[in-house]
Structure formats: structure tokens, C-alpha cells
């Protein structure tokens, strides 16, 4: 009989702070500048330069900690983590090893309807390294490598979870939850594709019921939520196979290969660096005023969990809808604002989840970049609600509004898209259609309900789709039974 295994996963997540300037110098943090233009002697590690703490970075780390239910540390300090690599100008990374700024937090995730608390061990501040561009595949196989230090010295927080995750799906959900919280609090841009959110995983298997942790591997190079899930699913199966064949797991760092869909060994524990951490003598410790921390707490926005609860409890949305809408702050804010202007939450939710998300995804646009404002959205929904336009027209108007950003009223006018609900005007057309289709009239009167649909269609055709189908339906029935 084969052993049942239990999966144990912990994530180390790096989020780039959305501060205007780098963590220890005043260079800008904008993404995508020309190589080596956002640099100064400080973030290039020139001799004699010294780090100066960016207070905003401390504030952001505290924000993240508060939003993730952490204990904020009144005293924290910086250490130097040493290793040689050309993207690291001083050959040490300034990080917090011994005394991190936040400890012991948690987030709640829900997988398959089951809620679970995932604990965070710590959140600490550190600086990012630069980027290398290799002429070949890697630094060892390249003729030369180019270094871009624009990213060097950008502020990061590292969020380290406890090994509380027990499936790839939980890991993905946890990461998505962190993403949402960091986005809501404005701490980070959390864009995995741009590298402002990065994730490594520690993963091991153990027989169900065992309290001893199995040997773990560390998985790197997962650049999207999907690759996180795929990599972990692969690694779980790999480890299970090794164990089932009576083998042992080697403690090592493994890289995820997106194309091949496999993880492979990068380096073993024996090759691991000794980082020789020690207190950075150039930076005084961070000592937080409790009053300042409370000020930050008071300034926190409504967080995803609270927002979701409100959407379900007060606005009557389904859990599923609320989950999707609160998945990003921008979308949730769009929803909230629209509801304040057009107070039918379910209708708004249907539109946001349906047409709006469909077009955002199809066009690859972000809510922030979208040309549709809550005001325009609400105006469109009002036109539909008052019967001015039909649901079908509304979709067409929305699509144009999404592409051009024009006001819905203007689009309706330009297209001449006014729904005809006037019974006198429609009555004439109905008479005309009935006169022209005696066979259908006879069919209906003989009990063939289908014929009615055909007749409605004919009226719509006559009115170029502008007739109010409800009104047409009523008129037809009335005339046919007269």
C-alpha cells in the first residue's frame, strides 16, 4: 500500500515599494527608464557613499505589516548580506536579518469554499539589485554581460510565510491575496510581469500524520501566478515519485523552466552562500513612534476581506462575484463608485464581471488605464434602466464607449439608438407586419407559440432594432387575441 503524502509549502514574496525614490538614495523608481539613467554614486556603490533611509519606505513596510495583521516592531535594524554578483554594486545587500520591521502576521484565504489562516513569519525591508543582460544564455556561457543599475537600490519588502500552505492552489491563492492587500494599501504596484512582485517557494512532502518536516527544495524563477501553480504541482509530483521509489529528496535550489514545464537543480545546499550577516554600521536602527504607527493604521483603506464582506452582506452580491470584484482595488473602487451613482449593485456587478472584464482582458488593459469611468458606466446603466435603450443596444454602446471613451449619451445620439416604446408609433408597424404575414397569424392562432417570436422579429427588423421588445410583445399578443 502506498503512503499518503501531505504537502508543506512556504512562500518568500518580494514586493517592490511604490515609493517615488529609491530606499537609500534619491534616484527615481520609475519603471522602464533607459539603462543606467536612474542611478547615482550611492546606488552604484561608489567608495565613500553612504545609505540614507527613505522614510516613505519605512511607512510602506508598516502599512503592509498593519494590513497583514503583523506585530510592528518598535526597534528594527539593517544588516549587510554579502555575496559577489555583478548586479550588486557593493557586493552586499542591505537587508533586515536579525530584527525585521514586522513579525507574526496572517492572512485568510479561501480555497474550495474552505477558509484557512496562513501565518506570516515576518516582513522586512531591503534593497533590490540591478539587472544583467547576457550576450548568451547565462553569465557563464556569455561572451559578455551588460549591467543596468536602474533597479539597484529600489526598496523591497520581503514577506516570509510560515509553511502553512498545503497545495499549489493554496499557494497561488495566498499570493493573490498578498497581491490584493499590497495593491489596496498602495504599498506596491504588484506586477509580476514587471517584476515588482516576485515569489520563491520552499516545498516538501511528508507522510500524512508525521509531525517532522521532510527535506525541502527551494523553487525559483516563477514569473506568474500560473507558473507558480504549475511549478509547485510539478514539484509535488516529482518529490512524490522520488519518495515512492524509496529515494531521498536533496536539499537544493531548483529553477522552474516555463517552456519545458519542469524544475531542475540550480545549486545544492553545499554550494549555498555564507552571507556573513552583520549590522550595517552606516545606518542607525529604525525606532518607530507608536503614535506614528497608529496614524498609519488610521489611514489604511478598506481592505479586500472587509470589502468583500460588505459586498456580500450589504449589497447582496454572491461570494463568487464579490471575490472577483475585490480581487483588485482598482476594480473594487470602480464598482463602488458606479454603485454610488447607480444604486443597483447586482446590475453593476453583472456588467463589471461581464462586459467590462471581458473587454479589459481582450484588450489587455488595466482598470486604471481604461477609458470607461464610473460616471459613464452609471449613465449607460441608467439609459438601459429607463428603457431608453435596450440591453442589446447597451452592449453595443458599452463596447464603443470602452474603445473611444465617448459619453454613452453621445454614442446613443450618433447611432440614433433610441428605443421606440411609444405604443401609437409601434401600433402602426405591428398592424403592417400582421397584414404582411397572414400565415404566421394563422399559425399563432392555431396554437403555434413560435409564430409570435417570428412576428416580434419582423417588427424589430422594420424598426431597425429600435423597438422595445417588451412593448412589441404586448402589442402583438393584444392584437392577435382581439
Amino acid at each position, binding site marked *: 500500500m502506498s503512503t499518503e503524502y501531505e504537502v508543506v509549502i512556504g512562500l518568500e514574496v518580494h514586493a517592490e515599494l511604490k515609493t517615488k525614490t529609491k530606499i537609500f538614495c534619491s534616484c527615481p523608481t520609475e519603471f522602464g527608464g533607459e539603462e543606467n539613467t536612474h542611478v547615482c554614486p550611492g546606488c552604484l*556603490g561608489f567608495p*565613500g557613499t553612504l545609505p540614507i533611509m527613505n522614510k516613505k519606505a519605512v511607512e510602506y513596510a508598516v502599512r503592509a505589516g498593519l494590513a497583514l495583521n503583523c506585530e510592528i516592531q518598535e526597534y528594527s535594524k539593517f544588516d549587510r548580506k554579502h555575496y559577489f554578483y555583478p548586479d550588486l554594486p557593493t557586493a552586499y545587500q542591505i537587508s533586515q536579518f536579525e530584527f525585521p520591521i514586522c513579525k507574526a502576521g496572517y492572512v485568510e484565504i479561501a480555497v474550495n469554499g474552505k477558509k484557512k489562516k496562513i501565518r506570516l513569519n515576518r516582513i522586512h525591508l531591503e534593497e533590490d539589485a540591478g539587472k544583467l543582460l547576457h550576450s548568451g544564455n547565462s553569465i*557563464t556561457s556569455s561572451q559578455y554581460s551588460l549591467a543596468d543599475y536602474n533597479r539597484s537600490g529600489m526598496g523591497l519588502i520581503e514577506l516570509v510565510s510560515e509553511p502553512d500552505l498545503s497545495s499549489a492552489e493554496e499557494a497561488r491563492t495566498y499570493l493573490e491575496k498578498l497581491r490584493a492587500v499590497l495593491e489596496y494599501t498602495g504599498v506596491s504596484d504588484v506586477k509580476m510581469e514587471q517584476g515588482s512582485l516576485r515569489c520563491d517557494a520552499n516545498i516538501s512532502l511528508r507522510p500524512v500524520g508525521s509531525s517532522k518536516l521532510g527535506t525541502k527544495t527551494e523553487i525559483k524563477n516563477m514569473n506568474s501566478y500560473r507558473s507558480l501553480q504549475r511549478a509547485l504541482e510539478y514539484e509535488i509530483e516529482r518529490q512524490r515519485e522520488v519518495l515512492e521509489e524509496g529515494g531521498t529528496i536533496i536539499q537544493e535550489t531548483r529553477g522552474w523552466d516555463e517552456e519545458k514545464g519542469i524544475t531542475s537543480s540550480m545549486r545544492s545546499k553545499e554550494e549555498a552562500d555564507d552571507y*556573513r550577516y*552583520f549590522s550595517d554600521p*552606516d545606518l542607525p536602527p529604525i525606532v518607530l513612534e507608536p503614535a506614528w504607527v497608529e496614524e498609519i493604521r488610521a489611514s489604511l483603506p478598506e481592505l479586500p476581506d472587509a470589502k468583500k464582506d460588505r459586498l456580500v452582506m450589504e449589497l447582496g452580491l454572491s461570494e463568487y462575484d464579490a471575490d472577483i470584484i475585490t480581487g483588485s482595488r482598482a476594480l473594487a473602487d470602480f464598482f463602488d463608485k458606479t454603485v454610488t451613482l447607480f444604486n443597483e449593485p447586482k446590475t453593476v456587478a453583472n456588467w463589471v464581471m461581464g462586459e467590462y472584464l471581458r473587454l479589459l482582458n481582450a484588450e489587455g488593459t488595466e482598470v486604471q488605464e481604461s477609458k470607461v469611468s464610473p460616471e459613464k458606466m452609471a449613465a449607460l446603466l441608467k439609459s438601459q434602466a429607463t428603457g431608453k435603450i435596450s440591453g442589446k443596444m447597451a452592449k453595443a454602446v458599452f463596447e464603443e464607449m470602452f474603445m473611444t471613451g465617448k459619453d454613452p449619451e453621445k454614442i446613443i445620439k450618433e447611432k440614433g439608438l433610441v428605443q421606440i416604446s411609444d405604443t401609437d408609433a409601434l401600433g402602426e408597424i405591428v398592424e403592417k407586419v400582421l397584414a404582411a404575414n397572414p400565415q404566421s397569424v394563422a399559425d399563432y392562432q392555431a396554437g403555434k407559440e413560435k409564430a409570435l417570436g417570428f412576428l416580434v422579429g419582423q417588427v424589430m427588423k422594420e424598426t431597425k432594432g429600435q423597438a422595445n421588445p417588451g412593448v412589441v410583445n404586448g402589442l402583438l399578443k393584444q392584437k392577435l387575441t382581439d
Partner: protein
Amino acid sequence: MSSLLGLTAHQLQGLLEKKEISSEDLVKEHLTRIAQSEEQIKAFVTVTGQEALQQARTIDEKRSRGEQPGSLAGIPLALTDNLCTQGIKTTASSRMLRDFRPPYNAAVVEKLQEAGAVSVGKCNLDEFGLGASTENSAFFPTHNPYGEQAVPGGACGGAAAAVAAQEVVFALGSDTGGSLRQPASFCGVIGLKPTYGAVSRYGLIACASSLDQVGCFTRDMTDCALVMNVIYGRDAKDSTSVSFPAGDFTKFLVNDVKGLKIGIPREYLQEVNDPRITAYLQQAAAKLEELGAVCEEVSLPHTAEAASCYNLILAAEVSSNLARYDGVQYGLRVQGEDLVSMYKKSRSQGFGEEVKKQIILGTYVLSSGQYEDYYLQALKVRTLIKEDFAQVLSKYDCLLTPATPTAAFDFGAIKDNLSLLTSLNTLTCPANLAGIPALSLPFGTAAQGSPCGLQLLGRAFGEETLLRVGYALEQNTNLTQPSPAVKGEM
């Protein structure tokens, strides 16, 4: 016109203000002296004559327009070559940085420029500040102006020698464990290591960041206070710097030590190898008592552990600070077949023996498994040393000690002489470990007429007392100004 060489900054200022001399003439005269004496002294790595003359002329023009050109306007000085100077080679006396031209000035360099002081060049030191004789310079050793066979001390031996040889009026250097006070003692000039944090370290090429401070070499106490006025103060570019509430330091130059309590730590006296130095110290104490101070023997019980503690902290921080010299961005790059061999070749060829020794030791004491046994122990001892000082200095206004156990030794003498090195460090490094201010003051001559110095240690931010005591000794004895090392008509 009689020679201007050997005059102090405040004497020269009087002449400049009255327009009896011009800055240009003053700088020219010092450049001439440098040209004459450098063959013998070798204090400078780089002489910036053109830049200096240009700056002197600008000062003269300002003065002729009636503008206030700054508190040290037109006074020639030298900078130790670990202080960054924009566009001017800053080598730290290392092959690694032989051609390094920083794109920025050290904070103190900026301040001196604002005060109108004119730098005439960059002085030799032990590579990256590691050494006690300038013999570890990658380029050449500097010679003591008081004796060609003698070292000038180190690490900042070049700057001390330049002042002693009258090549400049004053100089700036750094002090990590005595690198400024010990050469000051050997060269017969005043050397001040400020309280940690009192002077910005921005642009000082780091040796050991928690110990380094920028300080000055001057010919008398008044110049010392004048230079302090310029270089002290909080700097936004150094977060370990703090604002210093003292104001104008010259107001502490009062000939009055009445009621001051001065401690003489017995452990320091035990380090002295030359009885004349002990005798000078007793003479100074007697003079201070005569002037109304109280001098008493005190104990700093952890003094014997200071040098070992210092060695470990120094090595650890050096190994970290010097990791950036890897051939990637600046400094020496020796090509290799791959990245690691480029690292190895660049660092092997860029660093000298002493630097490598410190890096290896520092890497070892910080490595996992050794950290607790060495580095952490050193930090604990450092705390004990700080507490020793805190205790004694709560009862005494300052401490009087020898600055060095001997006068300047000969070339080669320090190599493999661990006990001499330990004695040297024991007298000076505790002030760095504790972050307190320390002043080395010439006081008489030891064997063969070589100068030797006393040291004053004060409370953190207690520079005021050091100035008062130093000034009183200067005013009431004839031992603080050794006769010039080099004759004017050399």
C-alpha cells in the same frame, strides 16, 4: 619678505586680511616647498598645483572686491588620499584605485572649499587606511621629516608629514584606530579625532565604518579649533552624523583649567616603552595641577582587551567595505576567462598584502560558525570598553595618556613586531571603539630628537575640554611646538 612657511592659519589669515600677502603667493611658496622637499619626504600621491593656484587667485579676487572669502580663505592644506575629490584622483594609496576619479567631493572637502581653503594635493597613506607606518601604501612609503630612517606613522602618515615638513599649513585625515593621532605624535603636530558622528563621513573611502572619523592635523590649538569650526556638523548625506551644539570652538581656547578633573589611566602608562614619554606625561600633569586642575590616576580595566577587540571589528568591517572593489564598475579590472576569475585576478592584483590579510580575517570572523566566537565576542568587549569610559568620564572631565608608546620607529621595525603594534593600538583604538573624541598633542622629544605626543580623551561631544586642556598646555609650556623638522632654506 620673510618666509611664510611654518606659520599657522590664524597668523596667515591676519596677513591675508591686511593684504600684506596674497593667497597666490602663499600657495606658490608652499608649492615651491613641496617641489624641494618631496624627493625626501614623499608625503603626496598627487599634487594639484594648477588647481590650487587657480583657486588662490579666485580667493584673491574675492578679497580685492571686498567680499568675505571664507574663514580659511587662501590657506593651503593637504587631504589624505582617502577623501574623495571630484575629478581629482583619489587612490586610498591602492593599486585598486590608482586611476579612480570620483564624480563627487567628500562632505568635508565641500566644507573646506566653502571656507576658501586651498587644497594643494592628496597625501599618502597605508592602503585603505590599514597600517601604522605608510609602508603599506601601494606606491611608496612616506618619510618622517624628523629623520629619514623613521616612519611618519600611519595610516595617515603622508598628511602628518606634509604639515610637519611645512608643505602645507594644515591637513585632513581619517582616524580608524589611531591613524591620525599616532602619525601626529610621530611628526610633532596636533591630531584631532572628533567624536563619532561629529564630522560627516560622506566621501571618506571607508575602512571600518563604525570606527572611522575624519579629523585634522594642525600646528597649534587655535588652528585646530578653526578647522573644527569648518568641518563639524550634521550632514544629510551621512545618517550617522549628528548636529554638534558647540558653536564657535575658538571660544574654548581659554587659558584656564581651574577645577578640571583629569584622569590618568594606569593601563595606558604600562604600554609605554620610552621612559621620557612617561616623564613628559608627568610633567604635563604637574603643570596642569599647578594651573588648578586635579590629576589622578584612574583605571580602565578592559584596556588590555581593546587591541584584540579592535582587530576583529576592524577586519570584519574592512572585509565588508572592500567587497565592492570587484573590477565590475570602477577601479582595477584584470580580465579573466570568466566572472569568478575576473574577480580573483582583479582583487589579487589590486590589493596589497595587509589589505588581503584583513579581508581574509574579517571574512573568517563573520562566517557562520565563527561569528559567535569572534565577532560577537568583540562586540561584547566593545560594550565593556565603552562602559569603562562612561564610568571614568562621569567623574573626570577628560583623560591624559601618552599618544604613542615610543617616538617614530624605523622602517621595517613594525613588520612582524606584534607587540609594538598592539601597544600602539592599545593607546589609540579605545577612543574609536567608544566613539569619544581624542586629541594628540606634541609634547617634547624622545630619543634622537624625535617628537612624541600626549593624548587627551574626552566625553562624547566633549571636545570643549580637550581644547581647553590642550590650549593651557600650549600656553604654559614650551613643549608643544617642536622645532621645525626642515629648515626653511633647505
